[in-house]
């Protein structure tokens, strides 16, 4: 009887879900004050399977953890892609002494890298995880940085603003305060001679089974690509196991740009994080600003005035165009069209950056959004220039790209049928953005859960069904056209009025609670999970980085292909290392 009802239960209705779960698994779940489903550890896998199979919670958007004084909390944000609804916030508790939680990788493969990150940052172990080792820091690093009791070498005080920086205090250079004159700390009594350097094995692996069976086989060997490699789009490394020329395994290795975004974010005050979000996905700073502002506004409950809403959308869509130009230019670069297409692409991006510079004051690091609005109104020259760009230039340039590239023999040969991602796998691996839509899944946060004022615009969710490199390229091209469409509508409707809502305050205090704000950034779903304890600093600040999570699927996509295809596949996923490593 209960099961028959299941199809009608919505994920976002926590009480109904709770009733269902408890009817099937007695005493498995409770509801906490934030309206999330807290599941007992021993029932976690069963409940997760039930949620996925019967309630269609097929998409595990984000996995993260919070360090409370009495417990660790692992937080899962679940959505339904097939029913286009959600969220359901599921939680599991782990005790402080020996935190272990069952792994969700068998249910949602997309949890893989995220659980590794939780382990790396907070030391929570996941029972049954296939490859639980450090991901952002190196193996052998001392401590779990995101735990509240971890103090970094340059530690000054628990929370900003630091007293030592005030007029009365005397600020010292950080280097002069610490023992080694550098940003380092060693455990007490650490002796470098007794250290064992943990190294990953790089020797050729002969397949012993094949040898014994007397089968002739080429040797397997490992190729390290990166972290300094022209095609890895930054400091990203891939350990590729080859059998002859065929890839049998690929493991992404990251963390070379891990800049401790979240730890710094938890020391910062709320608004101080805004410029740091610029540096996440540094090609789309406006989009990141929007995501963070939305998450905090959810907690604060401020109204954003109409004009600011429209300007936000204009900026976000301009960012999308700039990003896709960049992505297509560099995908072509990876395919061997060395720099000619990207020169054309960068030219268009420069024009958009000009608009950002005249509005926000900076080309790349815009720091433009505020909680409740935006930092500055548009300058006079903005609209005529933007109008010219949108109406007279962009579409022409996008068509130009299309004409020259889309039917190009090399693009077709190297893009079609390479790195195919089936739709169910795309959902299961939590991919987002053009990667997901390139596999024929019509999921776009702007449409599925409209934020800001996206429900007022008429636009298509662009998809391609092939799921290969070429499809992802084509989705980007189509999305740019849609963005031009949205821009036209937004500029026509742009009202006059104030640009900041809410009360003016010197210091922003955010009411107690937790919120998850997500936006459809050019690279996919970007989420911010914030927990406030009512003070001037976030208690927990987590970024659901879409580039990072999209990499879950990289190994699967590359298997069976050759090294040259890896470059194309990676280019088509379109990662940016600032966001991968944070």
């Amino acid at each position, binding site marked *: 009887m209960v099961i028959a009802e299941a199809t009608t239960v919505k994920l976002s209705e926590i009480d109904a879900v709770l009733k269902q779960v408890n009817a099937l698994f007695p005493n498995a779940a409770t509801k906490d004050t934030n309206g999330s489903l807290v599941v007992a550890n021993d029932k976690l896998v069963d409940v997760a399977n039930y949620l996925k199979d019967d309630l269609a919670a097929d998409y595990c958007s984000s996995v993260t953890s919070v360090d409370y004084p009495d417990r660790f909390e692992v937080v899962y944000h679940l959505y339904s892609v097939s029913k286009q609804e959600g969220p359901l916030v599921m939680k599991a508790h782990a005790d402080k002494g020996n935190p272990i939680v069952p792994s969700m990788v068998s249910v949602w493969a997309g949890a893989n890298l995220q659980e590794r990150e939780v382990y790396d940052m907070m030391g929570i172990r996941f029972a049954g995880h296939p490859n639980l080792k450090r991901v952002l820091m190196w193996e052998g690093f001392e401590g779990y940085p995101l735990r509240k009791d971890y103090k970094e*070498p340059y530690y000054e005080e628990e929370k900003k603003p630091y007293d030592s920086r005030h007029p009365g205090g005397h600020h010292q250079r950080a280097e002069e305060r610490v023992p080694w004159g550098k940003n380092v700390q060693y455990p007490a009594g650490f002796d470098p001679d007794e250290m064992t350097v943990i190294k990953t094995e790089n020797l050729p692996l002969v397949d012993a089974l094949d040898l014994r069976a007397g089968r002739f086989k080429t040797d397997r060997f490992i190729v390290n690509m990166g972290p300094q490699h022209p095609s890895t789009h930054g400091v990203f490394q891939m350990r590729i196991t080859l059998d002859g020329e065929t890839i049998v395994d690929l493991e992404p290795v990251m963390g070379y*740009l891990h800049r401790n975004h979240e730890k710094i974010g938890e020391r910062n005050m709320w608004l101080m994080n805004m410029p740091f979000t610029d540096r996440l996905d540094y090609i789309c700073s406006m989009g990141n600003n929007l995501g963070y502002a939305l998450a905090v506004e959810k907690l604060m409950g401020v109204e954003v005035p109409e004009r600011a809403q429209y300007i936000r959308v204009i900026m976000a869509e301009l960012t999308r165009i700039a990003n896709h130009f960049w992505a297509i230019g560099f995908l072509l670069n990876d395919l061997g069209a060395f720099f000619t297409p990207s020169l054309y692409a960068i030219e268009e991006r420069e024009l958009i950056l000009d608009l950002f510079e005249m509005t926000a004051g900076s080309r790349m690091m815009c720091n433009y959004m505020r909680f409740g609005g935006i930092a500055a109104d548009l300058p006079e020259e903005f609209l005529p220039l933007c109008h010219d760009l949108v109406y007279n230039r962009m579409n022409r340039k996008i068509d130009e790209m299309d004409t020259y590239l889309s039917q190009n023999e090399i693009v077709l040969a190297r893009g079609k049928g390479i790195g195919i991602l089936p739709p169910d796998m795309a959902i299961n691996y939590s991919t987002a953005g053009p990667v997901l839509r390139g596999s024929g899944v019509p999921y776009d946060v702007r449409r599925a859960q409209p934020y800001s004022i996206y429900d007022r615009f008429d636009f298509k969710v662009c998809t391609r069904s092939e799921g290969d490199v070429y499809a992802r390229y084509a989705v980007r091209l189509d999305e740019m056209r849609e963005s031009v469409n949205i821009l036209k509508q937004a500029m026509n409707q742009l009202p006059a009025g104030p640009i900041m809502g809410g009360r003016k305050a010197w210091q922003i205090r955010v009411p107690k609670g937790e919120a998850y704000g997500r936006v459809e950034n050019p690279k996919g779903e970007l989420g911010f999970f914030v927990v406030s304890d009512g003070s001037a600093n976030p208690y927990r600040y987590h970024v659901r980085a879409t580039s990072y999570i999209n990499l879950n699927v990289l190994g699967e996509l590359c298997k069976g292909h050759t090294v040259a295809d890896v470059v194309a596949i990676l280019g088509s996923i379109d990662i940016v290392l600032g966001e991968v490593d944070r």
Partner: protein
Amino acid sequence: MAETNGHTSPISLIDDEDQFIIEQVKQSVLVTTVDKLIDLVDNINNWGRRSSLWPMQFGLACCAIEMICTAASRYDISRFGAELFRPSPRQADFMIVSGTVTKKMVPQIVRLYNQMPEPKYVISMGACATGGGPFKEGYNVVSGIDKYIPVDVYVPGCPPTPQALLHGLMTLQAKIDNESIRTARWYRSGEVEEAPIPILGPDIIDVRQIPDIRAEAMRVRAATQTVGGTATDRPDSTSTATAAKTLKVDGHAVSPKGKTAPPLSAERLAQVKSLKKT
């Protein structure tokens, strides 16, 4: 041309009379022609090098995006002869450290620097590469690449605009213009020392600091051990050999030359011995 080279010191600075005469003789007799020749060689050499600086294709973070923009359509770095970004350090003349230097990445950066042929230069682009920038307080961030390799030009900004990077490039060119084969360190006899590659342990270890860290470890150990313990009665020869063995990374011994490692603790020694037996 002679003024720029700095080796012809103004006469007024020399007060000693003998010195003055020697200077005079040097300037007017014999040496003059050689000097002039060297100046000429310097000029041609420097002109050639400054006009075709090949950067290493190597981006770290956000600043790398601005670096690419500098190389691209609008700012066109090839006006300065520096458009040939080489993916291999062996072919590069200078390295633009464009972005946040993290502890996990710095061994690779130092290795790449060591692999570049001389003459080589480093431009530190942006606040992060210069001093840690906005992320300085982070636990995985190195406060400036100059803690590990020498830097020639610092470009401030976060990110520096392409114009600023171009200005940095011009500053580097001016620096090269003022070089002379008489003084440049890579033309002197003897080997130019490699920058030591740091190791990743529980935190990053600067190889030059190992003696200090070791001394500190000894101090802590002495403080915690009971008086009259086993601290002194250890055979030194075995321990040094073991220490040298454990400290090899990638086949390079990382223990600084000429320093012998202090003895191992008794427990550790027992451990090593039992390992040898099995």
